[in-house]
């Protein structure tokens, strides 16, 4: 089977992002960029399916600026066979990303599409579900276990309060949660090999997608600062404060 994985270039999770002083956008000019952690889990899951002999080909897709090639190469170093970059300098919102992915799904006809449940920049948690709607495919979101069967996939989902198992007809979409797997590190030989793997470039226009943003960011600001707290001398004082001052325990 053929697996499509989506990967996004995002600010590394260790970087503390701040708004620009004029409040128009976030200041990420010199920030370290990485593959979105949930996307990395998606790549790992696809590679494991290939190692098990379930998958035969893995295509890594990314969208964004030219530099997103780096994240596709990362996915290739982990085991993806080839890449597609949908290049644009414009901001792509989840609906536009889902439309581009839908166009690629129509061309490539993958049996399984694996993607992160959300990216750690926009925190939208929408793209997989939207692709499901546009492509008319079932979705197994927030996956912690994926088992591929004959013409179907069983997905254990992390839901509030526990786990839910759903069975989806193939082709299907899976979005990854943290527990699905622990991604491997790419070995140096694999990083070298990844440089030679094929990478096609296209654009939203070529895919026939109107990618214009529907939601405009008017302002960004830091969250309300917390008031400086106090140090308590001992456990007795702590319990007293929580009971009588903060009134959060009784």
């Amino acid at each position, binding site marked *: 089977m053929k697996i499509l994985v989506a990967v996004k270039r995002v600010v590394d999770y260790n970087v503390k992002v701040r708004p620009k002083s004029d409040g128009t956008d976030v200041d990420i000019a010199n920030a370290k960029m990485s593959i979105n952690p949930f996307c990395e889990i998606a790549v790992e899951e696809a590679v494991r399916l290939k190692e098990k002999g379930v998958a035969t080909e893995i295509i890594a897709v990314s969208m964004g600026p030219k530099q997103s090639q780096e994240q596709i190469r990362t996915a290739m170093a982990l085991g993806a066979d080839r890449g597609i970059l949908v290049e644009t300098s414009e901001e792509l919102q989840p609906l536009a990303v889902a439309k581009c992915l839908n166009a690629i799904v129509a061309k490539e006809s993958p049996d399984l599409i694996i993607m992160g449940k959300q990216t750690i920049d926009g925190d939208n948690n929408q793209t997989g579900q939207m692709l499901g709607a546009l492509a008319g495919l079932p979705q197994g979101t927030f996956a912690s276990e994926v088992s591929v069967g004959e013409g179907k996939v069983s997905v254990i989902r992390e839901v509030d309060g526990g786990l839910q198992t759903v069975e989806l*007809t193939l082709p299907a979409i899976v979005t990854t949660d943290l527990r699905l797997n622990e991604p491997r590190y790419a070995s140096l030989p694999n990083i070298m090999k990844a440089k030679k793997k094929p990478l096609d470039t296209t654009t939203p226009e070529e895919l026939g997608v109107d990618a214009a943003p529907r939601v405009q960011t008017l302002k960004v600001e830091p*969250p309300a600062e*917390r008031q400086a*707290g106090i140090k308590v001398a001992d456990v007795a004082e702590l319990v007293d404060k929580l009971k009588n001052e903060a009134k959060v*325990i009784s």
Partner: protein
Amino acid sequence: MSILVIAEHDNASLKGATLNVVTAAKAIGGDIEVLVAGSNCGGAAEAAAKVEGVAKVLVADNAAYEHQLAENVALLIAEIGKNYTHILAPSTSNGKNIAPRAAALLDVQAISDIISVESADTFKRPVYAGNVIATVQSSDAVKVLSVRGTAFDAAATEGGSATVETLASVTDAGISTFVGQELAVSDRPELTAASIVISGGRGMQNGDNFEMLYKVADKLGAAVGASRAAVDAGFVPNDMQVGQTGKIVAPDLYVAVGISGAIQHLAGMKDSKVIVAINKDEEAPIFQVADYGLVADLFEAVPELEGKL
């Protein structure tokens, strides 16, 4: 304006998350209708009709909606959604599963996790795990929003007398099946829903020591979480992780035990109402966000805390 609220329910009863969404709907202003899509969901519909501020409850009662599979419910929402200016769902795993799918069917860019309503088309939402608050404006005819429950008070469960209307149409996509579920049997509340959370970090030294936290949690009715450092060290499983790549929590009380306060952890808990930090390193960054800091050896302080509760 007319607003459709997607109810969070388990067929028998209405879940509290719905009430916070109703309050967000009130902040937008207009007629508020609640959709209860389920199977034998009369109990949930009845409860929704009593919620203060709700004008009408739409009930779609069919086996296809029993487990609220996104493939089926999103089709239903898309079918009736054009009649509304706003469609609101809670930011629960269910709401997040369904709302974006419905939005795409309506050709709408949904807005996730709103924390305030600035006007009928402008909302605030956290991005970068809450390190940045963005004010965003939608140009879509229908606004599809998911609502972060911790940011809005719960509407009263009594005082409403909504009319109840049954929806006849059944939308069954036939591409997904519910197989089963395993809901946590623990008496402790779920992390993201708990009003008190007590978390341990690398300072706990090993998984066995988390037993101390469980004991305190059981006295407080709290959930137990962990920092990424504790998860990476193998003390506790991944699903306990609070932080940017784990769970985002905002309880009334958050107790951080042996947690230094890395950015990635702070991003997941700094909207808590009251934060307590217990750490022997008085320079630990966690103290900069803590309302009450206790510089102490956790192995003495935590058992003492348990004894005093």
